[in-house]
Structure formats: C-alpha cells, structure tokens
C-alpha cells in the first residue's frame, strides 16, 4: 500500500534511530493511523513486511496500546478525561453530556462519521481540569456550556 511522501520520509529517517528494525514499529503504527484514520489490515500487513515481522507480531504490539484502533472512528475523536483531577472538577458530567448530545457511548462513533467519543485516563492537563482532547488538540477548564461551544466549533468545521 502507498503512504504519503511525508510518511515515507519520516519512516526512512526513523529506521536510522534504532539498532533493530522492529523498534520502529510503535511510532510507525501511530503515524500510519494518523494518515489512514485507523490501523487497517493493509497497514498491518504492510508494516509487517517492511519491518520483517509477522502480522501476529504487529497485532501483539498494537493491541497493547489503547490509542491504536483497528476500526475507523469519527473525524473528531473526543477524548474526555475522567481521571482523579478531572473527575473532581466535573469530568464525569462532561462525559455524560457528550454521550447524550452525540448519542453515542464510550468508543462509539456518530452515524455521520463526524465524532467519536472516548473516556480516557490522565491526559496530563490536571492544572486546567476538567480537560478534554480532540484529536491532538486540548480544551481546558471546561463546563457543559463551554463543552457545547467546543463541539459546535468542530461541527461547523
């Protein structure tokens, strides 16, 4: 399968960073997911061939990381932290509000493919709790109205 030139450049460069090829697997899986949207069967087979691993090896590593997924998810992946600091400041309310508004649960995706919802562990934004992460962007010090504004912003994009 074909990846973008940017991916190829990064992949080639990364191979020089490690003594063995298989060490490149974890970051490469993430880059491939960012590009394809999820880790497809094709991605697994391609990376296995490139890194001289079995597809089982790739699956073993991949399934360890909850941030790597094997099914397509929404354009915007809303990750709501419910770890201790966020929960004390209302993270659970944010999660249930999102679930209600989007009509999906944990790891669900809306029918139009715009949003996915995920309950996650600490995202390292405790000082600005409650916090969420949409794809790679953080939104902090939220409450329900602010949360709606964030979602509205993405829905309009």
């Amino acid at each position, binding site marked *: 399968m074909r990846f973008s030139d940017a991916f190829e450049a990064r992949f080639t460069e990364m191979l020089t960073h490690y003594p063995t090829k298989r060490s490149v697997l974890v970051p490469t899986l993430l880059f491939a997911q960012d590009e394809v949207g999820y880790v497809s069967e094709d991605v697994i087979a391609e990376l296995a061939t490139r890194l001289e691993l*079995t597809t*089982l090896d790739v699956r*073993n590593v991949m399934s360890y990381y909850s941030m790597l997924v094997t099914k397509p998810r929404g354009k915007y992946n809303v990750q709501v932290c419910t770890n201790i600091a966020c929960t004390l400041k209302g993270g659970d309310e944010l999660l249930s509000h999102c679930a209600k508004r989007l009509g999906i649960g944990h790891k669900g995706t809306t029918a139009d493919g715009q949003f996915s919802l995920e309950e996650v562990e600490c995202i390292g934004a405790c000082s600005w709790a409650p916090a969420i992460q949409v794809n790679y962007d953080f939104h902090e010090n939220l409450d329900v109205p602010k949360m709606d504004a964030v979602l509205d912003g993405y829905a309009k994009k």
Partner: protein
Amino acid sequence: MGTRGFGFGMADANITVDGKKITAPAGSLLIDACKNAGIEIPSFCYYPNLSLQGACRMCVVRVDAPKMPKLQTACTTTISDGMVVTTDSEEVKQSRKAVVEILLGNHPLDCPVCDAGGQCELQDMTFTYGASESRYVEPKNHKQEQQWSPVVFFDSPRCILCYRCVRVCNEAMDVAALGVENRGVSSLIVPNGGDHLDCEECGMCIDICPVGALTSGSYRYKTRPWEMNHVSTICTHCGDGCKTTLGVRSSEAGMEILRGDNRDKSGINDDFLCIKGRYAFDFANREDRLRQPLVRKNGVLTAVTWEEAVTAVGDKFAEVKQSGGVFGVIGSPRSTNEEAYLLQKFARSTLGTNNIDHQRTADFPAFVSALAGKPEMAGSMRDAYMVPAILLLGGDATDEHPLLAYQVRNNVRLHSAKLYVVNSQEIKLKRQAAEFAQIPAGTESGVAAFLAGDDSAVAAIATAITSADAWRALRETLRSAQNLLIAFSSDLQGDGIANIAKFAGSVSGAKVICLADYANSRGVADMGLYPDLLPGYASAAKAGLDLAGMSAAAQQGKLGALLVVGANPVYDLGFAADSLNNTFVVVQDMFLTETAAIADVVLPSASAYETSGTFTNTSGDLQLVKKAGDLHGTKPDFEIIVRIASAMGVDVSTLVPLGAGTTADMGQSRGAQSGEADRSAVYLQKQGLEARVSPFDAAALFDEIQRLVPGYDVSRMNLMAGNDVRTTTAGKAAALPASRGESLRPAHDTLFSSGSLGRYSRVLNSVAENRDSKLVEVAAD
C-alpha cells in the same frame, strides 16, 4: 543448559544461599546456580534456554548482600562474588503465596476435569505455598475454550500468562504462530490465524504449558495422568530417533496408547518432539489392526490359529527349500535391529538364500566405506546442537528430519553456530543460515565434487543467486571452519558421498551425517538387510537378488516363496500384484496391506510400540526400544520368525543363542556356524551377562549383535539406562566394490505424512486434510 549456563571463560563466583556456600560461573542466573546446587526455586515463566520473561514473580528471593531494596526475581538476577541470598524465609513464602493467590483469582479451579490435573505446576505450587483462601469475590471472567487446529485446544481461563508457549514457538521452533494480544488482565494468548493456528503442529506449546490451558486434541478428557503407564521409547516414524513417552492404559484389545509426549526429556531430543512422535502413535490403536493369522483357503483369506498358520508357512517353506525353489525376503526399515539381524540370519542360514533386501533410503554402504578407518568422522544427532559450524546439503530437514532441524536452529540461536545451507529450494532453515547457496535441482553431487576439489564442477552448480566466485569463497570459508558438521540428504550417494567424506577429511575436526528416512533405516543397513552385504557391511560370498531382481524373478514365475516383514512391495516397491500369482507369499504386518491382501498367509505383527529391542537412528545413535504393552492376537516379528524356523524343523538355538554352552563341541566341527552357542556363552560370561533361556528374547540376539557386528560394541549399561550410545562406522566396508550402485527409494515425506505408517495415522491425515482444505479456500478467493 544454554550459553548462559556454560559460563565460557567466566571466573567462578562464590555465593551463599540459605547459609550454603555455592560456587558457579559469575554471570550465571541465580535460579540456575541454585538448581545446580540442589536448591529449588519455583518458577512458572522461567524455562531453560528460552529468553527471560520475569513475568510470574514466583521465583522471588531476598538478596541481602549487596543489599537490594526489595525481593528480586532469581530468574533474571545474575550472580556475583559474595552474594548472600535467602530463598526460604517467611517473607519470600508470603510473596509466593500472594502470587499464587492472584494467579488463582480468575482460575476456574476445574482440576477434577482438567487434563493437567495431577501433573500441573500451578497445582503443585498451590499445595506448596498454600493460598487456599481467596480474597477475590467478584465473578470470574469465563471464556469458551477454542479449537485452534485438529490437535491444539486453548482454554484461556486456565492460562497464567507465563508466555512459555509463545517463546518456545517463536524462539525454539521459529514458527511464531503464538502471540499475546491486549494488556494487563485482558491479555490473551492468540494464534496467528486469528481463530486457528497456521503452524507445524508440533505440540511443543502443549508440553511446555505449566497448566492445562493448552491441551492436545488426541488426549484431552480421555484419562488422568495417574491412570496410565508411562513408557519412554523411540518414535517409530522418521530417522532421527526422538524419545517419546507413551501414556498407555489397558483396554479390551490388550492396551491402548492414549498420549505421546516428551515430559521425560531424557532423550536425544531434549525438549523436542514433532507432530509424529507426539500424535502419530494412533496407528497402533486402529480397529483394523490385524489380530488373527489369516491363511488363504479356496482363494479366501481365512482366520486361523497361530499354530495352523505357522505350520502352513513352515511346511511350505521346507517344501520350497527341499525342491530347490527360490526364496525372496523383504525386511522393513522400521524393524528393530534384533528383528532385522534375525531376519537376515534366518534367510541366510535357514532358508539358505541371499535374496534379501529392504526399502533403502540412503547409501549407508558408501557412507561406511567412505569413513572406513575414520569412525571419529561420523557425526551424532547431539553434535548438531553443539558444533560451531554446520553444512546442510540437500533435503528439507524441517519436514524430513524435524529433530535435526530443531538442534541446528537452536545451536545457531544459543551457541551462535554458523549454518551454511546448500539447497535447490529456499528451505525454512535458510532463516538461520549465515550463508545460503542455491543450486539447480539435482546437482547435489556436483557440490560434493566441487567441495572435494574438482573446480570444473562449479559450472553446473552456479546459479544467479550463487555465482562461481561465490562458490569458491564459500568453499574457502567451509575449509577453514572448525569442527564442521556436514549433514547430507539421500541426493548424495556413491561417489558423491566419497567426495563429501574426502572434503570433510580436509577440514579440521569435521564430521558427517548421512540422512535416511525411517526409524531404523541405519540399523537395518548395519544388520545386513542387503543381498550383497552381511551385518557390518561385510561382502557376501555370492550376492543374492535385490528388490528389482526379486520382482523380475516373480514376473518370470521363478520366485518360489516370498517372506515380507513389515514392508508393502506391491504398494511402493515396484512389485506387480499379479506377478506374485505363482509365488507363496507370507506377510507379517499390522494391517491388511495391498501385499497382505494377495498373500497366502498373513501373520499379525506387533508395532514398534509393542516390541522390545533397539533402534539405530540415521546418525548412528543406538537407543532402547521399550515395549509399552501387548495387543491381543499379535506377536512381535522376532517371535514370528523364530516360530516359522521352528515349524521348519530347525533347532532354534542355531538362530537365537540359548543356554550356557552345553553344546560345546570343543572346536571339532568346522564351518561358519560351528561352536556358535559356545562363543556366545563365553562372551556372556566375560560380559557378566546371564544366559538367555527364551528363544523369543530379542536381547539374546542383541548379545550376538554386540559380539559380531562391528561398531556395536557399545556400553550396555549406558544403553539399558535409557541413554543414547554411539555406534561407530568401524566396519569391513572398506572393500566395497567401487561401482556398487544403490537404488534408493527416499520417501520425501512432508512433516504430516510418514512413509509406511503415516497412512494409518488419523491425526496426521486430519492435519494434512485441514491444511489442504485451507489451501482450497484461499485458492477460491
């Protein structure tokens, strides 16, 4: 013990364990050092010669000097001088108890029905460390058991995630069919095919599983370990000679083999056993085993008593002999040494013929001849695991010689041996090869000639992958190798073998292995199942008919009687069924084979698992074959031959040395057999052995083999203890005619068939069918 245990060049370290002073090489693992000193440290995930996992935390110990802040895992701690260790304190016991409690948290505790019950390491640890009360009160997470292949089942709730199966499959077998998905409590052992295994079906994962998570399709839920008799004998399939432990139970038929495994581990195969040794014992249990002698009456094979059948054979053989008729005798490469020796002795002395042959799969006469005077050049199966360099010439060892492939692979992995593969195909062992040289198919003998110094041979063996220059470089590399082991397939014979031996002679410390197909191919060759060679490859005064000669004689109606022992000449040795119409055919076999179906008398024989004796594997390692039980109605081939001789009116003590020299003739008589019983008696007395009293005692002929067959003068004590002992190629074969010519019929079996017996194994057939059906599915896509 792998590289870690050898401690090459390492200084010794003195450590104190539980107040006891221990000395071991510095850098060895604490768990190994303790084990060697007789201090047991429990573990689940640690397994010798596999990579370290440190997953189970069962082997924790307290290391006081140097003071370490918390308990350490003995399986990952290397020792250093002055270390002070405590392995049995209250603290350590508490920790282990906690580990067992956590492991039992989601364990189904279905020991009363579990296959592993009674031989389970988790059970043992629970009894030792006693976590009988659990604080875990939540419902257990149950998952349905899964069938991964015809022979492998997985019951995930029993799994303790020690990763042994994953490591043995990845590292020792290089199959990589098992992995671990997910993480933490959700971790699961998974097969490479998603819901099934695509693998060699060796079953190593089942043997190595400390609990009952991986179970065998052929054994599961059939019996309990303590209800069986466990007999360690030698596998009857390929020529490598693995020890397999048969679990046997009495049944209406006499006995039933329920399990084959390698829990014994005392054999030449260490941890290894392939699908054939593990599952393909099932031919012995088939309902269509012959259990009554059959005699053809009015054209129909009719069940009769042993007495009647043996008398019929004896009378007819005596009659053919009397009238000067021609005999033919065909033996089997799966007979024991004793049976083969007796068969040729019976043919030569009782029937008076040299018309004796068997299915040859390697040119052992040429091999022994090439190594004449240099017995130290014959390699053993153990060498394949120990030598620093190996050359594999031809064949696909993974399929045809699974143990050899395993030893070579793990020698490369654990001892960094250099492997050179020369083959026309890209065989699996290429993955371990330091160099792979590809040759055009059928040019193996050209390789031997080139290696032996014939530079003109390089043109025929050069390919796009391996150029003539590359060949010259490879030859130089091999010449400078130390203690090179060369194993060659049946593609080499005659001059090819002479060339490879010549080349080996020029390499310092080089050894050679000649690969043949069946359990005792080497043994029956050593025992002289040849028309022109006697035991020990001594030339017969006058060569008899070989297989082709006997077949031609039968065609011309000149073969008076044919005795077939464990072979099937009509099926696979080129005998036309109707050519035997005028021949009196006697077949000794387990099944009504194509040849038995047209025989005049069929005598039901015992399998190798129902017989005592010895096997010599393809590399000349001699091992004890132990009888696992009796199947009612059958008799070992040995006994059948003696009974036939007796029915012919022969004094059986001329065949099987009996008694203690009471027939002394003080040398007055002359001739080949004169004073035979006496020499045996003198030999027995000298060896401190008792005189044999039964004509059916195969050991009596082993006495004679030891006394008379060159190379078999091995340590009897060692052999009887269950060890493999080395026979040597010291023979009289030096004087073989140069252009003797061998007609080989190699089986070229895959791993899932096994020549003469694979046809009768349901497990091998079901695995092969399972594979074929998958290929069809793929093709249909």
